[in-house]
């Protein structure tokens, strides 16, 4: 039996899957299109809901895979299946012969400039949640200068027909609550507002963080959408929004606006799905064999999924799914002669 497995994508799900496969006695290869392993986790500072360090978490994911053959700055160019085996050609001209493939290509962040009314990349003080996370990590962003008032806009590019993304991105609400608390810690005198549609506090500890945000940090939660952003003569942002609970429109001047950009399909999904002969859903994420009982398995034998390649997920969900995917591969390959 060919005990070699290809992992496409070197983010948290791919790293966990590769580590688990090696534990189970398989030889894993990781192909990663960027020059570093870690995916989006490289960019985060602290993880919800308990503010665990992202860097430390990544380090723990990287340690077990230090010996694994990894191809960085590399993509899959062609895949051909003969019997139960795949011959995979990479962009560095290497050819791998594997028995199974895990697609852990993850997600892309919604490009905030597409929501033109919010003025990202037009008005200086409009940033994304990813930009803010980078600021927390590095301590440096020229757009953030001791803000006295900060707004967070939930659901940017998510649950949005006009943006062609109907899906909820799952993690943005809790991220907004987390970041609101963090920025309040950094600027205790600042007034912080969260403009939300619904507050999806489904995970363990999320509701507690939400309550703490209100009681300890004084974050104001306004149920309503932001309709437009403009700049006044001093460069501050003038935001128009709706407060649906008091049934009133409101206008507020802020020093900083943070757009909670959603998870959308990875830009490479169309190409990958064509190479692997797998289906994508209407939302552009990969389609598994069955959403309930076989969510880590593809419709084609030997193709498996882990992490956000099949839809928005939290980090623990991605890691658990990576473990499940590795186990599913073990079960699949054990049946081969």
């Amino acid at each position, binding site marked *: 039996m060919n005990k070699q497995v290809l992992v496409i994508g070197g983010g948290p799900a791919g790293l966990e899957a590769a580590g688990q496969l090696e534990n189970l006695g398989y030889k894993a290869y990781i192909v990663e299109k960027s020059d570093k392993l870690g995916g989006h986790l490289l960019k985060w500072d602290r993880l919800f809901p308990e503010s665990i360090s992202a860097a430390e978490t990544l380090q723990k994911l990287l340690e077990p895979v230090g010996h694994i053959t990894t191809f960085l700055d590399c993509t899959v160019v062609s895949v051909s299946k003969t019997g139960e085996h795949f011959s995979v050609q990479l962009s560095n001209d290497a050819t791998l012969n594997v028995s199974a493939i895990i697609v852990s290509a993850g997600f892309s962040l919604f490009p905030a*400039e597409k929501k*033109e*009314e919010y*003025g*990202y*990349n*037009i*008005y*200086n003080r409009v940033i994304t949640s990813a930009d803010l996370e980078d600021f927390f990590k590095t301590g440096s962003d020229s757009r953030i200068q001791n803000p006295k008032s900060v707004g967070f806009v939930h659901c940017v590019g998510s649950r949005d027909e006009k943006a062609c993304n109907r899906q909820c991105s799952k993690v943005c609400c809790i991220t907004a609550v987390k970041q609101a608390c963090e920025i309040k810690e950094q600027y205790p005198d600042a007034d912080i507002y969260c403009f939300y549609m619904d507050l999806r506090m489904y995970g363990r500890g999320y509701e507690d963080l939400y309550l703490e945000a209100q009681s300890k940090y004084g974050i104001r939660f306004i149920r309503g959408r932001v309709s*437009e952003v*403009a*700049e*006044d*003569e001093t460069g501050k942002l*003038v935001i128009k929004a709706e407060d649906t609970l008091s049934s009133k429109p409101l206008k507020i001047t802020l020093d900083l606006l943070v757009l909670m950009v959603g998870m959308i399909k990875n830009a490479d999904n169309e190409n990958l799905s064509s190479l692997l002969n797998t289906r994508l859903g209407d939302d552009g994420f990969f389609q598994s064999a069955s959403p309930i009982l076989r969510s880590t398995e593809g419709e084609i034998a030997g193709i498996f999924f882990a992490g956000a390649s099949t839809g928005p997920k939290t980090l623990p969900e991605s890691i658990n799914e990576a473990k499940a995917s590795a186990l599913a591969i073990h079960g699949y390959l054990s049946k081969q002669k």
Partner: protein
Amino acid sequence: MIFNGKQRIWSEYQKEIPDDHYFYVRSCIRQNFFPASEKTFLDIVQNRLGLDFFETEHHTTCGGIAYHSDSIPQETLMTIVARQFALMTDAGYKNYVASCITSFGIYTETLETWRHYPELETKVRESLWKATKREFNKPEYLAHASDVIYKLRDRIATASVNRLVNKKTGEPLKVVEHIGCHYSKMFPSKGVGGAEYPYVLTGMIEAWGGEIIDYPERRHCCGFGFRQYLVKANRGYSLSNTHKKFESMKPFKPDMIITNCPGCPYFLDRWQYVISEMEGKTYGENSQGIPVFTYEEVAGLVLGYDPWDLGLQIHQTGVEPLLDKMGIIYNKADKYKL
């Protein structure tokens, strides 16, 4: 502000605008509000630039005011539009240009509705035939007259004798550009620059030497609307929208306002007087008000037309301070001569 962010959006909302051979339809009300604007448009394109722009006395209102006031149903509106297109077809034209922004919105809405519901187009064709024995082709290109001036802005700049510049200081004039709501708010892809950051007037101002002002209530409606204005009791609501805009633009100290709709310059010009009477408040330098222009008037000023031939004497908010600022020579005594 990050200017190249806007430039990126403008590059995504480009639209094809032919520069010649148009069938031109006028506005119901512009000739009353700003009497020389349409005449200036035709003089520029036909006589100054030698282009083929045709109009016929047989065309009518587009029906927009009646439609937006709920006086006529959509099918009636579409049949009126169909007749306009039939006149265009009979005259041998394929490019259609409307003077009025509401008309542009009506024509765009009609064509888009027919695209999605072809059975409605069939019904309208039958209605038109029954009523007038006319048939029509749909325009290949639909433009607003400001799209055409936008397209020709560089040619106008080349031929210009005046610039949107303070002659004394050499500084560009600070210009507020106000876009009519029916230009791109309904169909963003049909407007140059889209709905959030339209470029049609910005492009003209840039080409003619001015500096654009972006202020918080830039996108806000002037308040003209239809129902709120046509019903006298509602006019306070209209006024309050204009008031909101002026309060918002005031800190930016604009020298002038340029608009591309019939109703918008009317309101922005006239309501300044009402606000001064009601609140004792004025805007602009030396409390002289902020002069409001149509884009044709500005094109005319830039090309050196006599201000009184452009109908600027009809403006409620005096334009002379701006003319002086631009260094335009004019005869005060001729202002009201026929």
